[in-house]
């Protein structure tokens, strides 16, 4: 395995030399190794790049890893991964992607993930994105996520991008059936000239479905972030979105959250706040003995859940 791949794996998963259980490891546009478990089966697609992941209802508290690594310049990776989660399954999926460039050409990873959660299943999806390397080439990660969440199923997504990704466009959409739940925690930090665009669209079609969308961003340097969300309540349902951003230096954030209710029983709430770090927070931590810089770091790390 490539040294850089090892470094990336270390950063984006809790990998320490081996993955126990099911996994599929992608490096520079190819699946370089994979493993099934008793209840999780990984099958290569034959019509396009990517895999189908079949998760049986017997899978309980299991983790499957599907990291993708790009280790050099001029790699343009496009992959389709579909997760078929049977009724009653309870699993954690650790995805994530690292892009390393070492020359002037850029590299990108474009992962298209679809989740089909059958009734009563529970998936925790963790995804961490990083960009590394000295090359001037742009590191680009453009994930597309689509989820169909069946009756009483729950999808929890935790996505984290902490730096080094020059450009990202994230597109997340979901459809929720009766009693289905979707919880999204997204944290993005950009610096220098980086840009991040993130879009969410959630359709609550089933009675008593609910979504909780929490987005935290920190824009430093000259970076720019754009956030948009559309939460569509078509029945008796609950939607909550919260978009908080901290600006440092010349960072800019543009947030446009939308709530669309087409039923009188849809209960939708949005909260948003953009601004610099509250001065009193820095001062409080300084009175506890931290320097101004340390205080800022702690506040940002806590805010992003990093």
């Amino acid at each position, binding site marked *: 395995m490539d040294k850089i791949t090892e470094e990336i794996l270390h950063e984006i998963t809790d990998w320490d030399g081996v993955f126990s259980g099911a996994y599929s490891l992608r490096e520079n546009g190819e699946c370089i190794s994979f493993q099934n478990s008793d209840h999780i089966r990984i099958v290569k697609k034959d019509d396009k790049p990517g895999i189908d992941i079949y998760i049986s209802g017997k899978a309980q508290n299991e983790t499957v890893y599907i990291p993708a690594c790009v280790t050099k310049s001029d790699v343009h990776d496009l992959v389709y991964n579909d997760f078929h989660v049977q009724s009653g399954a309870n699993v954690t999926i650790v995805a994530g992607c690292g892009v390393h460039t070492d020359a002037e050409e850029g590299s990108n990873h474009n992962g298209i993930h679809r989740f089909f959660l059958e009734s009563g299943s529970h998936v925790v999806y963790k995804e961490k994105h990083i960009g590394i390397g000295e090359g001037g080439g742009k590191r680009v990660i453009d994930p597309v996520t689509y989820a169909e969440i069946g009756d009483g199923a729950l999808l929890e997504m935790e996505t984290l991008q902490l730096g080094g990704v020059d450009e990202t466009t994230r597109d997340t959409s979901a459809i929720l059936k009766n009693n289905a739940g979707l919880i999204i925690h997204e944290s993005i930090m950009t610096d220098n000239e980086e840009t991040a665009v993130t879009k969410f669209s959630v359709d609550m079609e089933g009675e008593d479905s609910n979504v909780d969308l929490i987005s935290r961003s920190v824009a430093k340097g000259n970076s720019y972030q754009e956030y948009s969300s559309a939460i569509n309540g078509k029945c008796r349902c609950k939607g909550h979105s919260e978009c908080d951003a901290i600006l440092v230096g010349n960072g800019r954030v543009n947030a446009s959250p939308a709530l669309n209710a087409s039923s009188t029983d849809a209960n939708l709430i949005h909260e948003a706040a953009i601004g610099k770090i509250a001065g009193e927070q820095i001062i409080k931590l*300084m*009175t*506890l*003995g931290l320097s101004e810089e340390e205080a800022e770091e702690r506040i940002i790390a806590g805010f992003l859940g990093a």
Partner: protein
Amino acid sequence: MLKLENITLNLPEKDNLLRDVSLSINPGKLTVITGPNGGGKTSLAKIIAGLYVPTSGRIILDDEDITQMSITDRAQKGIAYAFQQPVSFKGINVRTLMGIAAGGEMSEMRMCRILEKVGLCARDYMDREMDSHLSGGEMKRIEIATVLARGAKYIVFDEPEAGIDLWSFTSLIQAFESLKDYEEVALLIISHQERILNIADEIVVIRDGNITQNGTREEVFPTLMKNNSDNYCPKGKEMF
């Protein structure tokens, strides 16, 4: 010893917030500052912790002039300050905050002991975020606990009684007494609470930016009741 010498504070928005205030705070002693709202008590606390720099006058800590010293450096020299209005943080939990205060990770046992002093159970609160989900009273107690965690030599508490129930208050009073008696801490507490005034060694009254009284509890305490009968709270707890 922490000495304030002829402190005057003018802020762009407000002149004469403090006028020629001199005061010293001694290890093993509890000084209580009291006086009407808006008198300048919190401003004085902020001057000590370095949040405000005085317009004139000097602050001397153990023979060193710290008047221009940063908040961080003062904290590291052993000055701690529990805010009147606690600050909330999104994403920072009680455990982390107390760790920062203690200068490193803190054992659960120690956290338990400290939170107990403010009437909170560590198990219930360690992992709670310091955000708007906590009530005002809970925030206030955690604020006090973080300051207790610092192990500082000079501690200022700004109206610690706010939001604390009667039962927890007893244990807080004990905590204050043990700080001064066993740990030789110099305590400065801004308070209107009779039970805190009762354990004071010195009482200082600040009105309109001036110290109007400064003496031992025996000297000052009886006059408080007399001078302020018009402001006297019928419940017998609050005197201003």
